[in-house]
C-alpha cells in the first residue's frame, strides 16, 4: 500500500480514504470575500429627532413671545372726550363724569381678594355689556339696511 496519496495525492488512493474524502469534502474551505457587517445608520433618526425638537422649541418660544406681547393689554376702557360747544348726549348719566372706566386683568391675593375680584368682575360685566351693545347696534343697523 502506497501512502503517497495521503501526502501529495499521488499513487493509488485507498477506497475508504476516497469515501472519507468525499464525505468531508462538503466541509472544505470555500474562498469568500470578507464582509464586514455595517453599523446601523442612525443619522436619519437623529435628524428627525433634532428637527422635531427644534420645531417644538421654536413653537414654544413663539407662543411665549406672542402671549407676552398680548397678555398685558387685557384692559377695557371707554374714553369719552366732549367739547364744551358740543351738545350733551341724550342720556349719559352714568358716563357723565367722563373718566375712563378701566377693567384691569390682574390677579390679587389676600383676604380682600374676593371683593376685589367681584369689583373687577362687575367692571368686566359693564364692559362686556358695552361691547355687546355696540355689536348688537351694528348688527341691527345691518339688519335694517338689508331688509
Amino acid at each position, binding site marked *: 500500500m502506497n501512502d503517497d496519496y495521503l501526502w501529495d495525492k499521488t499513487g493509488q488512493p485507498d477506497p475508504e480514504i476516497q469515501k472519507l474524502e468525499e464525505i468531508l469534502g462538503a466541509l472544505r474551505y470555500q474562498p469568500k470575500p470578507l464582509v464586514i457587517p455595517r453599523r446601523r445608520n442612525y443619522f436619519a433618526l437623529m435628524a428627525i429627532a433634532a428637527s*422635531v425638537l427644534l420645531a417644538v422649541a421654536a413653537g414654544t418660544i413663539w407662543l411665549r413671545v406672542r402671549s407676552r406681547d398680548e397678555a398685558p393689554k*387685557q384692559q377695557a376702557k371707554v374714553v*369719552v372726550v366732549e367739547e364744551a360747544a358740543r351738545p350733551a348726549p341724550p342720556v349719559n348719566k352714568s*358716563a357723565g363724569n367722563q373718566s375712563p372706566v378701566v377693567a384691569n386683568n390682574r390677579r390679587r391675593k389676600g383676604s380682600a381678594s374676593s371683593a376685589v375680584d367681584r369689583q373687577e368682575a362687575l367692571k368686566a360685566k359693564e364692559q*362686556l355689556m*358695552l361691547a355687546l351693545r355696540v355689536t348688537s347696534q351694528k*348688527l341691527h343697523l345691518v339688519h335694517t*339696511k338689508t331688509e
Partner: protein
Amino acid sequence: MKSSFHINIKMALIACLAVLAPALVAKAQDSRIQMGSLDHLAVKASQTVDVNIDERLMRMAARVFSDKKEDEREVKQLIANLKGIYVRSFEFETDGQFAAADVEAIRTQLRGPGWTRLVNVTSKKEGMLEVYLLFNAEQIGGLAVLHTDDRELTVVNIVGPVDLDKLAKLEGQLGVPELGIESPKPKAKNDEK
C-alpha cells in the same frame, strides 16, 4: 450615499412640517383680529370705545350675571362659549381723520382663510358696513363687524361660537346705561353745519 443623504433631508423636512402644520393651521383659524394698527387714531377721535375682554374676564363677568333676570340670563347663555370680545370704535369731529390703509389693515386679516364676508352694505348715510364670519368646519368660530363712514371707524371682533340671532335680539334689552354711542350722527352733522 448621496441618495441616502437626500432621503434623510426629506424625512427631516416632513417631520418638521408634521410638527409645524397643526400650529400653522391653528394660527390660520384664529378668529382674533389684531387691532393695534388703529391705536394712533385715539388721539384724533372725539369718542373712543376700546373694549378688550379675554376668556378669563368673560368667565369672571359671567359669574356676576343674574340667572333670575331674563335679559342677563340671555347674555350669560350668549357668552357661555365665547373666548373673547374686542371692540375698537372711533368717532371723529371732522371727515377724513382715518386713512384707507387703516381700514385695509383690518380687512386684510378678514380675507384670511376661514373668513367669509356675510354682508356688505354701503349707503351714503351710514357708510360701509361689513359682517364677516369665521367658519370652523360647519360651526361659526368668530364674528367681525367693520363699520366705516366719514366720521366713524368701528371694528367688533367676537372670538368663539356666536349665536347671531341671540346677539341681534339683545338690542334694547341689556339695561346698561347709554354711553352716547347711539347718538344720531346725521342730526349731529346737520347741527354743526
